[in-house]
């Protein structure tokens, strides 16, 4: 007994300080961001980021796993999305779908999403219920219950809901097809779910292996943003997450191996209903240091606001389009700029495409004016700060930074980097990347 007691005391002496010293706690107060945060790592490899904000009695808990579609092997299309949904099917102490019920009972909101680089789970709830969210997230990280029945039910629901969406949205299938053309590497370009056939063929073994490999603390980040007491939060994090065993180190996702054509890729497809239009996209890979900043400003010059170049030209001046939108899509080291356009009629597709290319050519030859650049900068800054104004927005920003491999400390300079883009840098960027070999067009028209 005495020996046992001595061992216990020795363990306690060793282990408690070890727990306290699990990771370095660095408080980062970025000058260019409207919040501060602390970052540390548990012994099992889980990265933890805390960001305190006491303006409202709310807290957001976000858990990101590097378990996106890039982790799927050929033929496993839909596996990452299926796993995301299986995370709501119960764990050792929580019955199927009770995760949702627990959060909703206290007035919280929750959701999850799967992208190329990660699966993200998050909930925002009253801040005095922080422990509840940590209990729920830790239980499914530690002991997710995957049953054949849960797999069958979840897969069937996902496939049937996706097929219903395909039936009601005539353009949806074109987005998936466009991605496969714009990212000519199956790993980077395959869709989240596709037609559902491959998801139907996934075996239980594949599902379990994916979970065992990627849903482990050393492949995850836990971000807590909101009305928190940092010391108390660290205690709770240690309580719920410290004893979860780590997994093996996850492999680094492979870099894309793009087969580059000698000219622009152009395809035509028929859709069951809707209007005629097209997708146009540009691929940027590999980006050099600072070039992502150019791309962000360029997105605003071309597409954000009614006075942006493409909206102004196609929707107001030429009247060749009746709907135009676009966005950046970044998948680890590959960035793309995508434009989606519904033409006023089928004849106007070619004119709209030509107008877009002509606006881009102007950027190659004429430097952007200080007024236009200033407008894009101010708009970008406003949107950026607005995104960071909620706990969820901050948590997602921090998780995104983690999943893209950035140092969180480097976030401080991110906004200033974008605001510091010069007209010369833009001209150089456009000339370098907006070339036919990086361009993809997918035209569609109703049958």
């Amino acid at each position: 007994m005495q020996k046992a007691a001595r061992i216990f005391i020795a363990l306690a002496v060793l282990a408690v300080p070890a727990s306290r010293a699990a990771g370095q706690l660095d408080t980062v107060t970025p000058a260019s961001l409207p919040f501060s945060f602390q970052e540390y790592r548990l012994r099992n490899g889980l990265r933890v980021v805390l960001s305190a904000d006491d303006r409202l009695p709310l807290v957001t808990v976000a858990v990101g796993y590097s378990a996106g579609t890039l982790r799927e092997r050929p033929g496993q299309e839909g596996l990452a999305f299926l796993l995301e949904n299986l995370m709501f099917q119960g764990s050792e102490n929580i019955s199927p779908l009770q995760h949702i019920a627990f959060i909703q009972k206290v007035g919280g909101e929750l959701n999850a999403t799967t992208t190329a680089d990660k699966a993200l789970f998050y909930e925002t709830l009253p801040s005095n219920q922080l422990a509840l969210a940590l209990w729920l997230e830790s239980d499914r990280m530690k002991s997710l219950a995957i049953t054949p029945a849960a797999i069958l039910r979840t897969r069937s629901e996902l496939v049937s809901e996706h097929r219903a969406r395909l039936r009601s949205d005539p353009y949806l299938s074109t987005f998936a097809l466009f991605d496969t053309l714009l990212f000519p590497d199956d790993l980077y370009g395959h869709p989240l779910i596709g037609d559902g056939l491959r998801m139907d063929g996934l075996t239980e073994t594949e599902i379990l292996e994916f979970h065992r490999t990627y849903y482990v603390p050393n492949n995850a980040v836990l971000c807590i943003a909101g009305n928190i007491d940092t010391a108390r939060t660290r205690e709770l994090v240690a309580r719920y997450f410290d004893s979860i065993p780590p997994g093996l180190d996850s492999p680094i996702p492979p870099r894309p191996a793009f087969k580059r054509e000698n000219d622009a890729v152009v395809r035509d497809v028929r859709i069951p209903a809707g209007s005629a239009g097209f997708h146009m996209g540009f691929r940027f890979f590999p980006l050099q240091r600072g070039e992502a900043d150019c791309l962000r400003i360029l997105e605003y010059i071309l597409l954000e606001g009614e006075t942006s170049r493409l909206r102004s030209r196609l929707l107001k001046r030429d009247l060749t389009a009746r709907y135009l939108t676009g966005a950046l899509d970044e998948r680890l080291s590959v960035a793309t700029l995508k434009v989606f356009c519904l033409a006023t009629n089928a004849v106007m597709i070619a004119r709209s495409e030509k107008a877009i290319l002509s606006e881009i050519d102007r950027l190659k030859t004429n430097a952007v004016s200080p007024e236009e650049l200033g407008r894009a900068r101010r708009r970008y800054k406003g949107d950026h700060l607005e995104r960071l104004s909620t706990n969820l927005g901050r948590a997602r920003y921090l998780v995104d930074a983690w999943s893209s491999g950035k140092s969180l400390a480097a976030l401080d300079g991110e906004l200033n980097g974008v605001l510091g883009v010069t007209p010369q840098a833009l001209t150089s960027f456009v000339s370098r990347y907006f070339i036919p070999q990086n361009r993809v067009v997918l035209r569609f028209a109703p049958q």
Partner: protein
Amino acid sequence: MKLLIVRDRSAVPDACFWLAAALGLILAGPAGAQERFRRTPPLPDAQRLELKLPAVETTVLANGLTVATARRPGSPVVTLQLVIRAGEADSPPDRPGLAALTARMIGKGTRQLSADYIENMIESLGAVFKASVFMDYTVLTMDVLAEYLDRAVYVLRLITLEATFGERELGAVRRAAFWELYESKKDPEVLGWRQLLAVLFEKHPYRLATQNEDVIKFITPRDVADFYGRFYRPANAAVLVSGDVDGPAIAQKIGSHFSAWSGAAPAQAPPPPPAANDRERICYVEAPEAGAATIFAGNVIMASSAPDFFPFLVLKQILGGTTGSRLFMSLRETKGLATFAFSEMEVFRSCGVYWARAQVRPEAIVPAVRETERVIGGLAAGPPPPFEVEEAKSYLIGSLPLRFESAEGFAEWMARYVALGLGQAQWDGGTEAIKQVNAEMVGETARKYLSARPVVIVVGRPEWIGPYLGGLEPVEIYDASGQLKSTTRKQGEGR
């Protein structure tokens, strides 16, 4: 049932990890393989944090314009809003959509400046400008970085007080509105909502008459100028600012910009609420591209100033607020009829509407309609058990702060509060008001508002009518523009 507890057995954690894990097991005592604290959900922190919103500081200028500010520390983006106390219900019956088109024409030209120039001026500030039209009021919103707020106030004054309404600009606005209405007719949720209002408010200003995009074509610059002249007046308006601002200083600036605005308030009385529907009425709206059937079932309720507003909020939560509420549990989880089933409510100046909505397979239309009616009727039959009331209250109290997190959510709440002249309980007193609600109050409110038979709207493909509506007759069949096409009868009944 085979249960696989997924753990990584092949991992090789470091020694430090196992040391702590061993300690964890020892400290957990004889509970077994897992720590005891994992078995049950943790209790919340004892001290519940109360919601306290920034105060709305209000002044009224000599010309009757209300100026309201709310300071939100740490919000670098400021929301500047002009609220006009006139909305879609104020559009003349022969000019539906006029309120919306008038609002969209703000910023499309002044006596001196063209629409393009104004657009460029606004976007040069990095600002985003939008017009939103509700049933009883209109909101013109400009989101701008705090350092450009002074300039934004100037621009807002310029485009509002000196607005002109040219045919060319109105033509562009009409075209955009036409396409939006045309496209929106493909959305079953929009079709269901419009038809519900059309039936519940048949000869009332709250009837939404913009079901058919063609009505937009007949609105002229003269119509817009008349609507503007009648309602865009200082005593019928308010300028609101929310963000990290010095309230008194910005209120003074607004005063100096808008003090020259003149005109008395229009003679307006809130429209009296209509009687609730109390007969079986089922409408089917054809949506040729619908992927699934959408069901709405709703009726008229009270205004937000009524004493039973907060008990009704709790009632609506019990009915279908979340996936744990009665509609979802019954229609989806128990009977497998629906993809989802929830309840909603919308409150106008003089009354409101509640509705249940569900998405179902076409072959489940009839049982889903009957089950929805049964769940609604069940609540009217007797008070819900106290635990259900407490769960609903817990959800409502906990979720209330979420509305105010974003600048947009806060500004929308503030605009509604000022436009409808609501009391403090509607600002941040909701928590206390909800706490006072008990099962008897909810039961009484349910008896009062849910006893009347709800109007049922089903939105789906035309080809589903024959095979899937048997047993619901009579059903009024409408096209996507809200035109009555026919009425189905029970077999043996004449047409």
